[in-house]
């Protein structure tokens, strides 16, 4: 029960299940159900986290459309839009005939984010596609009043989304409690909903974090929620992170932390060995941590749609066995990896210089020079047998020679 995030478990799968915005939902279903709508595209707009993307996904499932999505993580220049969106919007896929799928649905998320040199000509390309499309085109934006979106607005049906209201959030929380068989005081749900400030996702996360099997969720339990709007320091984040009782509580601490994700990843890596004494648990924790690291690398600066995987894996590290938690002394920043990199900088620069020289003379890469040539070169220099010719040929300095002969490992 505690290892699944309720936000994912109870993500709406039908239009009816999407909380709030009844008028917007009605307008949208009318448009998508219409075979010959007046406008070929629709622009959903409103603040983040109100269910625009969820509604599109639910509608695609309900009306049997295959979603082809381009979001902020993709480059959306004229060329890129034409390459992906033009075939998707003008041709009918073979699966239309072989299954129940009605066809493609093009979804351009965060269109207000089409900007800069990378996305040059993107809006104009989208307009051209809308004019010639044979499939529904849906766009989502947070701020529709931007100047660059004006031509798009003229040819789209505009649908406005608003934040979820408190009674609606309470109702959603009640439903989840009933399904998870969590007993609750109404006032506790009320406090969670009020605290969420219209953000359904955070309300569900809080509910999961606070509820325990066989215990009644009381108003008193929700007093800890005042932490939500505070930015927690690295030290407090680590304390809360390792002491958390389940994944949702860990997620809640990570949410409110003001620490950088990269720093957090390294510091957690330093402290995991102190947290778990059992080897099996430690191995499992490191496994999650390595997966988080892999996803962080894949996210880079663009692929933020992978963030949830990074985040979930990082949360799982602390939730391997919450019952075995005993307070311990944290290794706080700067992380060991950063310190090691600082202390070894001179050595690494020296080795890189030697490898460049070997690479130039032997026509090999720096990596190959480091892995294959340097160990033999070190042995040859340590033997001090006719090494002068070699040193001269490689143009090594006396410091580099000393460094190589004293090199223990690399």
């Amino acid at each position, binding site marked *: 029960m505690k290892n699944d995030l309720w936000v994912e478990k109870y993500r709406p799968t039908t239009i009816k299940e999407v909380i*709030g*915005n*009844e*008028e*917007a939902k009605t*307008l949208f279903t009318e448009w998508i159900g219409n075979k010959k709508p007046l406008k070929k595209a629709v622009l959903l707009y409103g603040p983040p986290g109100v269910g625009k993307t969820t509604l599109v996904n639910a509608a695609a499932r309900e009306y049997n459309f295959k979603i082809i999505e381009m979001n902020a993580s993709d480059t959306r220049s004229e060329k890129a839009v034409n390459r992906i969106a033009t075939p998707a919007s003008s041709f009918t896929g073979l699966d239309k005939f072989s299954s129940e799928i009605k066809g493609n649905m093009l979804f351009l998320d965060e269109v207000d984010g089409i900007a800069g040199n990378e996305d040059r000509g993107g809006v104009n390309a989208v307009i051209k596609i809308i004019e010639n499309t044979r499939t529904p085109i849906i766009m989502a934006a947070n701020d529709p009043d931007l100047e660059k979106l004006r031509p798009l607005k003229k040819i789209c049906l*505009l*649908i*406005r989304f*608003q*934040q979820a*209201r*408190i*009674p*609606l959030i*309470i*109702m959603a929380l009640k439903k989840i409690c009933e399904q998870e068989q969590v007993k609750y005081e*109404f006032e506790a749900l009320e406090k969670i909903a*009020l605290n969420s*400030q*219209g953000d359904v996702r955070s309300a569900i996360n809080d509910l999961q974090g606070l509820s325990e099997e066989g215990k009644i969720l009381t108003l008193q339990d929700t007093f800890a929620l005042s932490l939500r709007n505070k930015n927690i320091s690295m030290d407090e984040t680590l304390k809360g992170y390792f002491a958390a009782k389940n994944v949702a509580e860990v997620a809640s601490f990570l949410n409110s932390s003001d620490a950088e994700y990269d720093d957090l990843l390294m510091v957690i890596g330093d402290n995991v060995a102190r947290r778990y004494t059992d080897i099996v648990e430690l191995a499992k924790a490191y496994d999650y941590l390595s997966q988080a690291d892999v996803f962080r690398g894949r996210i880079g600066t663009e692929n933020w749609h992978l963030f949830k995987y990074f985040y979930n894996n990082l949360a799982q590290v602390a939730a391997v066995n919450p019952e075995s938690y005993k307070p311990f002394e944290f290794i706080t920043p700067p992380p060991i990896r950063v310190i090691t990199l600082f202390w070894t900088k001179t050595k690494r620069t020296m080795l890189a210089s030697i490898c460049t020289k070997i690479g130039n003379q032997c026509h090999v890469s720096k990596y190959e020079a480091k892995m294959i040539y340097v160990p033999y070169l070190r042995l040859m220099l340590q033997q001090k047998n006719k090494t002068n010719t070699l040193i001269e040929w490689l143009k090594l300095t006396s410091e580099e020679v000393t460094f190589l002969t004293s090199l223990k490992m690399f």
Partner: protein
Amino acid sequence: MVILNKNGFKLPRVEKEKFTLLMRLGLEYNSQKMLFSIKHYNNINQLQNVLQDILKSEIAFTQTCIICGTDFGCSTCKYFKACPTKDLPFSCICNQCLRPKKVMQQQVLF
């Protein structure tokens, strides 16, 4: 404050320009029933301002409960002050539907 029923409400006679503006902002006029109703919700904030100007009073639209279908005003809601979207949109849950179990419990106790 004037509470208007979004499905049909009357307005005093307005000039042609104002009438056109109301239609453009999303109102619909039923000439047989002589009632205005809301057709589009996208310009609702501007529409609210124009209507306030016409009626010379603060206005609010009724909310429809998505559970029981009754119309009610936002001012009757317990969370009115904390609500992030006062008056708009027009669907919510009324107080009776939000706490039905307590009502039942009270009935059992009596």
